[in-house]
């Protein structure tokens, strides 16, 4: 079992950010293609850090 963080610590992080998880669920946001994902990972300006004002609404596409 992974051990970077304890289960209790992980749950604490989740509880603190549960609104972001719920927003993601509610948005209908689709997972991107591999292509788009890779672009996002490399882009450096990806909105996917959860701090963008359109988090949860973004289509997670390669535009960003």
């Amino acid at each position, binding site marked *: 079992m992974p051990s*970077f963080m304890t289960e209790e610590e992980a749950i604490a992080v989740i509880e603190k950010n549960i609104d972001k998880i719920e927003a993601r669920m509610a948005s209908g946001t689709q997972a991107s293609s591999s*292509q788009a994902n890779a672009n996002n990972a490399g882009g450096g300006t990806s909105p996917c850090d959860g701090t963008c004002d359109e988090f949860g609404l973004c289509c997670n596409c390669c535009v960003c």
Partner: protein
Amino acid sequence: MLNHFVFEESDGLVNLTTKKFLPKGSTEEQLRENFFLEGQEQDSVDHFLFGKKKTNFSIDIIPTWECNLRCGHCFVLHELLKNDKREIDNDMLVGFVQRLVAEYPSINNGTVQFIGGEPALRAEKNVGLIRAMKQIPGLRIRFSAASNGTLCDDKAVEFFSALDSFIISLDGPEYIHNLQRKSITGDGNPFKTTINTIEKLVAAGMRDKITVQASLNEEHMTKQNLVEFYKVLLMCGVRFEKIIPGFVCPTKHNPKLDAEFIEVHRVNARNKPCCKYRHMVNFVVDNSNHVFCDYFEANGKNLLGKLTDPISKMAENHERIIRESFSVLNDPKCKQCPVIGLCWGWCANTKGLNPSDHCDQELLLDKARKNAEKDNLANLMRDSRKHDLTKN
């Protein structure tokens, strides 16, 4: 008289299509040169789509169509091969980039994404290509990849280490992941294999490079599943903000449209066309050493040419493909739309829809007007740094 792409702010005018700003008091000549005048709508669109000034490029590299998984929701399931002996010629690819930069000298940075197939199956070859591309003078290139994370031998680790960042696909908790993601041999536990890889990469100091993407269907997208998913990944060392769950997208073999998705997203500003329609900016190179403009259909229909073909010939081919297949250029209502530059057809492009049948122009237009009133159009055009929105 100004054309209907132009919006007025307190200190100047903004052409939403070209992203160009001109100060108030600009002469008619300046307005004409920048396609602000009535009757210059088509020129605005053409200038934005096909202008020579480019600052960056993006290449999706498909080193192999082999994959060791067969996932039900895969976009390119129909393209995957059991054995694929073809190889990208690294020298040809480096030569292509050098000629591209020579043709468009304003390019100073690029992104290269390894996708596939499973790119880690060609780890050693990929590392060689990264090293070669880093030698190209005057360019800053970021390297990334999308991987299923099932390979973590020394060569794969070296490949991941050579990247600036990468995506690992993990589709929720163990039972869901293994339901969607099957090994090609039908045995093993893909979830545990990928988790082991993530742990190994985190231990090797790559924590900040890792993003984990999940594709879940509506049935599995529950709070309970997501909490379990986040918990396992956090314990592995993946950062919270780098865990990205999303819904499974329509594919060729399961093309159901997500009406809710279109409903939610139609009023968000989208400043650039889908990557296929970014003229001579986005490329897909596969291991037949051909260049395409579309990953999902990397075939003759979207072929720009061979890696060794003249750049000018590829540019001609790309412009033809865009003019023939870009939905907004073939929808009469879109061509007259004042906010085409904030839309570009959205997901209608990839879903075979007629854009104007699924849009609510007034909502986006209202958003543009309100932002103009607040001198906030630059912010609405979030990627304006990449364009020519400069307040002189």
